[in-house]
């Protein structure tokens, strides 16, 4: 308040703010021109009229500033609503599990109990007496349980299929010698893809979407697992077959004996299997027995036969018969000390595919065999393997403690599985002591994990796990038993059962935590997002009056609503009425309250609202683009091919704008409009050649973003792109400025020199980067890196420090010429000119708002170009050109002043389109993390994440910055004097401008909010879809991130920037 009073005094004396009063004369002196009458007249007039005119001007400026702040507040409210909606949905949708780095070790038992007898000498095993020295673990990919059990042809209506009865060896051995073998259904936790299954089978924990660990991008397992434990125990490990193991456990296997095979060629049924056989059987030769301890063999033939032919095909029968032979050979060759395990990692559906969670996909088979004869059944009813996978199944993670304890290893830290009963029951099935011992160990380890997990989550000890009571019961039973000298088997049985109960209960809880969606929370999020869109639609498209008039009442009611809601939320939470954390319930009810308040303010006054239906083909087109794309996100195909769809829409817009241009009355409009329409289409099509294909687009897509499909470096020819950009882009911008004679003042300096210099340094940076990759220069890597970091920081400083300063303080891009006599009748001049005497020609008058504001887009363009790889820089250059072209199209088709929705929507499409053209896809793996090191040598917060955002969402950021231009470009300058209303209240054209800007901003926001709501709803709706984790979930995350970024940039850069450009125009031309 004080400062505004100060400036009021100053303006009272000087007629303008200090900057304005000093700079224009200096500029004019250098031109040796007389004092411009326009300005001088204004000054003298204001001096003469004294305070009346002056306070009016001042009041208009203050009104503008005040209303501008109010609008920022409204946009900020929308931002907060979006954040709240996304938060509540994400909380229920994105299942996360923290990866604990803790490792179990041989020396540290999971409980401190000196009475434990398991630990013996090093040859006896760690936590428990070991049963086997060696093991052969054979995985037959997609070995479904019903493949392995006999199906009698006469049984009910079910005919024996081609895949039945082809691999009888497992069932036969389990029936004929139950002490040597057992066969059980082996249930996978979805997703049933091999990589996720191997994770589960070795770590003993459940897969979630985000295993939030230190190693986010890579696939290598960094939590405790079976393979790491075996390796730590000094075992020599051999892996044969599917190369997924190599990605998960790099460096764990004996390099000389290991033979990985490519796993993705599903058409090839035999290469992998024959390769495994070829290398597996020689290892079983007695003279090779000392060279290995554990073999992991992974056969893929059954899986591939399923993918290629489906299960009910002779090829599947043949493949299963071959596997039968392989297992018989193994049985013949394996020695007494070796455990033989055969299992499927998942099943397959009726078409032979897998990945989801249908019964057929999760039902695999597990078979264990040893010649020692140590296996048993505790109950005579369970001697025979179950006929269907629904009976007596074991979860797949049970393999982890079972194998660990059988081989005398510590149980991996994160394990949630239980020891398989048959493996520890002893030959007679009566070894209850052993069963209790292994289950006590496992339970203790699970408890230790629970404790650590709760600790690192920051929650109270075991708050989530109400199962600890069960464990205490079991422990009590155990202690009572151990005190009495001779334990009865019945008592042991009950202790065993209580340990099992604890383990399964914990598993259920964890499954609930990590694998169950919190649907109410998801609905809360969707509800908030939906309500925000409804409000936005009416605010952006349905208001007939000036939006600034609404600001006060809107902000008031939103404030009251959110305050009341938040307070209610807090009370409810403390009164324990709702089962939520205090902050969450506060946020939820504050959001709901603000929505109610906002609707009250927007919908209450009658007559101000109209139904927000489009009133022209342009409006319908905008709706068509937004809605059809949003509906399309329900389909994985349209999500995968989003880049092509955006090109299709952009070309459609170009064609319609070309058609519309041909209808224009004036020849100049017609020619310019058609030219820019064609240019717009062509540039988009050229940009579309820059592609980075996602996996699902194969084989119909060829990546061009990098030098080859398998590299992430640029080809040498691509290093020319930045230089081409340096040469051309400033010229392109200049040509658009020159069109309205606006290449004057700050524009020529900033675009002609600053922008070009920045682009040149950028191209030099990428040349050095290329030189570093290709080792073309005899300089050390350190020197090159240092130089590069310096250059990059220079460009960023130029773009964002110098650029922002220039943007805030520079004058409008006009030049003033004063001629003594009237020469050009059609040259537009200020209304304050004195008639007859002299003519003041102001070059660049026609586009004074647009060219002034565009400087901000130039700054961001420079910063974003630096952060892109060379190919992406080309795309950004084309984007800037397309933006300018679009602005001209809008102008020639009279869409600037008509507040059409099409301008902002096409800008949004452009930003989304170029997201794909800068080497990104809606998948996590396409994030170019390495770009955060362009101007930095080490990771620095918060800069590194901001830089990655600048790289990833650069195109959307650039188009967001350009949004106000859709109503500013070539906007006629209206002054208060011109549009003086008949009533006493002066109408302020700057306020009309503000209202238009915020309408454009909200329309633009509407596109991203709609896309976000659509992807959110589809991801929530399709949460059981096979492609959830590959397609829908990443697209939802991208939609949410883009919306957040766009909102923030709109509030803090784009709409905020309008303040400075409008003030700067107002200082020169008055209000």
């Amino acid at each position: 308040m004080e400062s505004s009073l100060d400036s009021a005094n100053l303006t009272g004396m000087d007629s303008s703010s200090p900057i304005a009063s000093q700079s224009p004369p200096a500029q004019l002196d250098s031109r040796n021109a007389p004092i411009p009458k326009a300005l001088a007249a204004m000054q003298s007039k204001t001096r003469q009229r004294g305070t009346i005119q002056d306070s009016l001007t001042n009041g208009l400026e203050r009104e503008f500033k005040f209303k501008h702040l109010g609008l920022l507040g409204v946009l900020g409210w929308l931002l907060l609503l979006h954040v709240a909606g996304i938060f509540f949905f994400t909380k229920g949708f994105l299942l996360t599990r923290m990866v604990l780095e803790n490792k179990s070790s041989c020396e540290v038992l999971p409980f401190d109990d000196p009475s434990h007898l398991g630990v013996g000498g090093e040859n006896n095993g760690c936590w428990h007496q070991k049963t086997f020295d060696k093991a052969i673990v054979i995985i037959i990919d997609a070995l479904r349980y019903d493949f392995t059990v006999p199906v009698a042809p006469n049984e009910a209506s079910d005919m024996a299929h081609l895949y039945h009865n082809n691999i009888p060896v497992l069932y036969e051995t389990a029936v004929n010698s139950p002490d040597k073998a057992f066969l059980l259904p082996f249930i996978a936790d979805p997703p049933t893809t091999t990589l996720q299954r191997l994770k589960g089978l070795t770590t003993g924990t459940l897969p979630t979407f985000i295993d939030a660990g230190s190693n986010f991008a890579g696939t290598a397992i960094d939590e405790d697992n079976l393979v790491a434990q075996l390796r730590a125990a000094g075992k020599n490990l051999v892996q044969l077959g599917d190369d997924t193991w190599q990605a998960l456990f790099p460096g764990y296997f004996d390099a000389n004996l290991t033979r990985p095979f490519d796993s993705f060629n599903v058409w090839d049924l035999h290469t992998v299997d024959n390769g495994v056989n070829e290398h597996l059987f020689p290892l079983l030769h007695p003279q090779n027995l000392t060279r290995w301890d554990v073999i992991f063999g992974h056969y893929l033939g059954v899986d591939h036969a399923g993918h290629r032919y489906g299960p009910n095909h002779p090829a599947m029968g043949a493949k299963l018969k071959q596997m039968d032979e392989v297992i018989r050979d193994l049985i013949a060759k394996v020695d007494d000390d070796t455990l033989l395990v055969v299992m499927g990692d998942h099943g397959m559906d009726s078409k032979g595919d897998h990945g989801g969670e249908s019964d057929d996909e999760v039902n695999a088979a597990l078979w264990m065999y040893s010649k020692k004869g140590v296996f048993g059944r505790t109950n005579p009813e369970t001697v025979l393997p179950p006929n269907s996978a629904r009976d007596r199944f074991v979860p797949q993670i049970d393999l982890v403690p079972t194998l660990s304890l059988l081989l005398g290893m510590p149980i991996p830290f994160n394990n949630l599985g239980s020891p398989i009963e048959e493996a520890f029951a002893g030959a007679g099935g009566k070894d209850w002591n052993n069963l209790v011992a292994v289950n006590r160990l496992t339970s203790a380890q699970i408890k230790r994990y629970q404790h650590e997990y709760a600790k690192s989550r920051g929650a109270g000890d075991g708050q989530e796990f109400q199962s600890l009571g069960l464990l205490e019961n079991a422990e009590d039973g155990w202690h009572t038993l151990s005190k009495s000298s001779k334990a009865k088997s019945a008592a042991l049985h009950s202790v065993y059962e209580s340990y099992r109960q604890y383990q399964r209960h914990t598993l259920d809880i964890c499954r609930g935590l990590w694998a169950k969606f919190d649907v109410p929370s998801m609905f809360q999020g969707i509800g908030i997002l939906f309500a925000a869109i409804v409000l936005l639609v009416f605010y952006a498209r349905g208001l007939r009056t000036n939006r600034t008039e609404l600001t006060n009442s809107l902000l008031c009611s939103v404030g009251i609503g959110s305050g009341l809601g938040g307070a209610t939320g807090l009370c409810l939470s403390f009164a324990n009425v709702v089962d939520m954390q205090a902050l969450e319930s506060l946020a939820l009810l504050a959001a709901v309250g603000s929505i109610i308040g906002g609707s009250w303010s927007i919908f209450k006054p009658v007559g101000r609202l109209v139904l927000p239906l489009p009133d022209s083909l342009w409006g319908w087109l905008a709706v068509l683009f937004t809605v059809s794309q949003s509906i399309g996100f329900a389909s994985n195909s349209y999500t995968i091919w989003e880049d092509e769809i955006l090109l299709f829409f952009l070309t459609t817009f170009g064609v319609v704008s070309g058609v519309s241009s041909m209808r224009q009355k004036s020849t100049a409009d017609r020619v310019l409009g058609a030219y820019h329409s064609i240019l717009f289409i062509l540039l988009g099509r050229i940009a579309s050649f820059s592609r980075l294909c996602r996996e699902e687009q194969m084989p119909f897509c060829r990546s061009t973003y990098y030098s080859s499909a398998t590299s992430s470096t640029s080809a040498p020819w691509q290093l020319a792109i930045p230089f081409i950009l340096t040469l051309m882009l400033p010229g392109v911008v200049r040509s658009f400025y020159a069109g309205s004679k606006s290449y004057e003042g700050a524009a020529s300096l900033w675009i002609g020199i600053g922008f070009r210099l920045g682009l040149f340094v950028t191209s030099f940076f990428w040349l050095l980067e290329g030189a570093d990759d290709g080792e073309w220069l005899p300089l050390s890597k350190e020197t090159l890196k240092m130089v590069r970091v310096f250059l990059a920081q220079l460009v960023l400083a130029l773009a964002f420090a110098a650029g922002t300063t220039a943007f805030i303080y520079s004058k409008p891009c006009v030049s003033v010429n004063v001629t003594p006599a009237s020469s050009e009748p059609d040259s537009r001049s200020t209304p304050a000119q004195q008639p007859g005497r002299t003519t003041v020609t102001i070059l660049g008058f026609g586009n004074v708002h647009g060219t002034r504001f565009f400087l901000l887009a130039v700054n961001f363009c420079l910063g974003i170009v630096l952060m892109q790889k060379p190919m992406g820089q080309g795309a950004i250059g084309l984007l800037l050109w397309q933006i300018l072209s679009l602005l001209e199209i809008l102008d020639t088709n009279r869409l600037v002043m008509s507040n059409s929705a099409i301008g902002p929507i096409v800008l949004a499409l452009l930003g989304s389109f170029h997201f794909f053209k800068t080497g990104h896809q809606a998948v996590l793996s396409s994030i170019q993390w390495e770009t955060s090191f362009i101007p930095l040598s080490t990771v620095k917060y918060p800069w590194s994440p901001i830089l990655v955002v600048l790289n990833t969402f650069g195109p959307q950021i650039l188009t967001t910055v350009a949004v106000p231009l859709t109503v500013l470009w070539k906007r006629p300058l209206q002054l208060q004097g011109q549009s003086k209303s008949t009533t006493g209240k002066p109408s302020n054209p700057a306020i009309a401008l503000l209202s238009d800007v915020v309408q454009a901003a909200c329309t633009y926001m509407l596109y991203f909010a709609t896309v976000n709501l659509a992807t959110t709803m589809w991801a929530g709706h399709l949460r059981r879809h096979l492609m959830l984790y590959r397609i829908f979930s990443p697209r939802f995350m991208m939609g949410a991130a883009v919306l957040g970024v766009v909102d923030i940039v709109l509030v803090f850069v784009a709409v905020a920037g309008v303040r400075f450009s409008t003030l700067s125009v107002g200082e020169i031309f008055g209000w």
Partner: protein
Amino acid sequence: MSSPTSPTSQQPPPAPKSPPPASILSTPLAKTYATIHPFLLLTLLAIRFNALVSSPVDTLLRDLLPLAALQLAYVVICLPPAGTIDPGTTAESTTTTPTPTDEKEKEKKSSSSSAGGIVLRPGKRGYRRKAHGASSGARGAIMAKVAASLLSLALTTLLATPVLAVCLVLFGAPLTTHHLETVLCAAHMALLAATGLVYVYGVDGAAWKEVWGVLRPADAVWGAALGTCVGAWFGAVPIPLDWDRPWQAYPITILIGAYIGYFVGSFVGRSSCVFGKRIVIDANEGENKDE
């Protein structure tokens, strides 16, 4: 969805008077065949569908001639050749024309005799003949039809096909592969859309300026042309779907869309509730995109 690719070539004449919407000739044969023709085309498409799916290029190439023949037969039988659109010959239709175009028709009527500003107008002679002497009218009309049909065939092949092929590429058709598919698809679309237009309007600058601006008043020819383009636009929709159907291959769906669009457009353009109306892009009342 017409092509904007060469709008600058259209220099606006000083006082452009565009021809009125063309109606189907009033002979019984013309009326009958005009109704049969779109069905014939759809039948052709249905018969050839399997062949089209199994070998698109061959089928498209082989069907080019029959399609051209059908289209020529249609225009010669059913449509007035370029320059002959005269209120006299289409009196029946003019009376049914909705009021908005009536004034323009009158203007046209008064100016058509003095429309010498336009240099080349095939069929002009025929028109004059008809105007001057009824004795040589029949022969002149035939000459006009021959000239117009030859011109329409030539322009369709030489101009419309490349323009449409470029459009297909701009909308995302592959640039480096599938050249034959693109060109043949464009040729089929051109035969569907452009033959009638060229036949009826010749190289009348005012008419073509309206074509580029999608400003033509609706009639069978313009409806069919616009329908072809819009249909092809919608035909691209199923391509990305992962149904793994052989007919999803480019350019089959686009062609099917174009044929269906032609069918719909030619009937809708003729229907009395639409005939003579223009598409509005940006005005207060206009909402409908097409048809």
